[in-house]
């Protein structure tokens, strides 16, 4: 079982190399990448089941024992994220192949996408902070290329901001690593967890805030999110979907992992996290309401919903962490589906600006259905998948008497409904105000090419499945949260 651990990184990397070699044959490239991601998905599911049954799976790469070598660890949280990540990557890849446009035919698209997949996989399985830095860089460098792949003017403008801000975050990460190493003499997370207890509480809280800032930039927390709604909408449609669904969540994963594992409970900046979570929810959703472009509304929505996940961390109980993990799982699926539908709206209507779209409920009823289900799920309308994690978060908040954050989260949910209904009314119900800017595609009965509709429908299906199987899934998240609250199993699995 432990031999499988490096495969979610190794398989996409080999596929990336093969895609470069077979650059002239698009069909071969596409077959290789679909096969690679399907294999990764299967392996991730096996790893998740293994980690759930046997406890954290550990592999010391190269035979170097921890804390000297690089430990690869899959516990329940990593397993959940890994599985969802590879399913999303696979769905978006199929969608990208189905969409027409110059970008998907670009000779580096497949190989860069595979490197992105490897980076995302690596971020979830590494057990030491420096390798986490390398994994982040792998993922981010691939994302820089994917964001600017057309070389269009607005892509270069937004890409510049994105690259510069990510580089500053990476530099901050290096600074944090340098200080952590100077203070403790290790970068292995399990080892850090043991040694941080000996540090003065003030120093440990400083590290908590520093790491929160580093990963907060990547996750898009208030006040560090300004690059996100600017950069995401200019990328090619499917690329935005994978960025929206996964990249910010890798940041959230890193925040949850470092705050629960490394920072001792007494020095955890919990109040700060709660305040930041509340402000992220409100500011993000107010930003969404002010916009008039489908992709920009959805991008601001991501910011707002990152707040919900971080709220679960800020409450820091088993129930709230379980809710946060389930929320993250639901959000990855629903958000990716929404962005893919956003791409379909653009495909059918020829524009992503609400004022140029209209009446799509009649012209493209399938797209309308594919939009409405994840949109309502995102707002937390029962019985869809957003309802259960939100209910669990609010219950956890009430039981810990944190009423302020609960009220803020309810208001943010209501405003989410408003912002998404704005898209619904603007694009699907009301007639178009302005003439379309681009060329609307002729649509058949499905409302788009089958290869674009099928993965979107599959994701909507998964979103519904999360709602149906919410009981067992919540139990799994609960077990994952228990592992986070009491990291002894993780530490002893790594250090032996």
């Amino acid at each position, binding site marked *: 079982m432990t031999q499988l651990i490096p495969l979610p990184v190794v398989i996409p990397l080999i596929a990336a190399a093969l895609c470069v070699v077979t650059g002239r044959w698009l069909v071969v490239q596409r077959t290789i990448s679909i096969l690679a991601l399907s294999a990764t998905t299967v392996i991730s599911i096996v790893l998740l089941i293994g980690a759930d049954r046997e406890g954290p799976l550990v592999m010391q790469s190269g035979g170097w024992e921890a804390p000297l070598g690089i430990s690869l660890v899959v516990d329940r949280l990593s397993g959940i994220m890994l599985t969802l990540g590879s399913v999303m990557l696979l769905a978006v890849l199929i969608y990208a192949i189905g969409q027409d446009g110059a970008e998907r035919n670009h000779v580096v698209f497949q190989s860069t996408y595979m490197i992105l997949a490897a980076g995302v996989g690596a971020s979830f399985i590494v057990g030491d902070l*420096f390798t986490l*830095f*390398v994994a982040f*860089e792998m993922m981010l*460098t691939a994302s*820089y*290329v994917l964001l*600017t792949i057309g*070389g269009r*003017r*607005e892509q*270069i*403008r*937004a*890409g*510049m*901001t994105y*690259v*510069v801000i990510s*580089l*500053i975050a*990476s*530099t*901050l990460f*290096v*600074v944090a*690593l*340098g*200080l952590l*190493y*100077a203070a403790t003499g290790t*970068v292995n997370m399990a080892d850090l967890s043991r040694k941080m207890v000996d540090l003065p509480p003030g120093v440990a809280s400083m590290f908590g805030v520093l790491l929160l800032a580093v990963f907060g930039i990547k996750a898009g927390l208030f006040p560090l999110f300004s690059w996100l709604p*600017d950069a995401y909408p200019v990328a090619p449609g499917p690329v935005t979907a994978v960025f929206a669904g996964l990249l910010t969540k890798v940041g959230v994963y890193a925040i949850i992992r470092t705050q629960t594992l490394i920072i001792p409970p007494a020095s955890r900046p919990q109040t700060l996290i709660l305040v930041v979570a509340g402000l992220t929810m409100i500011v993000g959703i107010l930003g969404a309401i*002010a*916009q*008039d*472009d489908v992709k*920009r509304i959805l991008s601001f929505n991501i910011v707002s919903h990152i707040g919900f996940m971080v709220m679960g961390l800020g409450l820091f109980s088993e129930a709230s962490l379980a809710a946060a993990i389930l929320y993250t799982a639901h959000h990855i699926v629903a958000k990716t589906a929404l962005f893919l539908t956003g791409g379909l709206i653009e495909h059918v209507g020829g524009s992503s*600006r609400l*004022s140029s779209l209209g009446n799509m409920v009649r012209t493209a009823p399938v797209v309308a259905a594919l939009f409405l289900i994840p949109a309502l799920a995102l707002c937390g309308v029962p019985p869809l998948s957003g309802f259960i994690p939100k209910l669990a978060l609010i219950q956890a908040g009430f039981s810990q008497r944190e009423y302020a954050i609960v009220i803020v989260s309810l208001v943010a949910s209501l405003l989410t409904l408003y912002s998404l209904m704005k898209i619904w009314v603007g694009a699907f119900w009301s007639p178009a*105000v*302005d003439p379309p800017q681009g060329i609307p595609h002729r649509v058949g009965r499905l409302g788009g090419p089958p290869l674009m509709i099928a993965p979107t429908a599959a994701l909507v299906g998964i979103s519904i499945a999360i709602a149906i199987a919410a009981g067992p899934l919540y139990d799994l998240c609960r077990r994952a949260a228990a592992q986070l609250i009491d990291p002894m199993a993780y530490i002893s699995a790594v250090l032996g």
Partner: protein
Amino acid sequence: MSILLAVTAAGLAAVGTYLILQRKLSRIIIGLGLLSHAGNVLLLSGGRPGIEPLIGLADDREMSDPLPQALALTAIVITFGVTAFLLAMAFRSWQLTHDDEVENDATDVLVAAGVIKSKDVLDEQLAEVEIEQEEAALEAVHGEVDE
């Protein structure tokens, strides 16, 4: 940590931060380089100082700590790659606009100025800004052809 290294890191970080806050792309890129140097110096100073860490050269306790050096090397290589990418993007930006300045986002400018009262106004303004940008881009392209 030696005071010299600390002062160097602080100085590099200060100059780097100042340069990043400029509007010219070339300055931002140089600023990022300096800032990442500051990070690397800090990383290096986290380890124990001493002579070269080669087995057999000296006693273990006299050797410097090799791990931060290895980490700094990795960080330098990554920054090098990303800086090269940034330079390529800056060149592309110069090709498109014939200017070294970071552009504003058209929608952002209008939202910030508080011009958006209704959707129609936004669309008109946005169209104007877009036309201006396209004209500038066209000029840039023609300029290139003329040269």
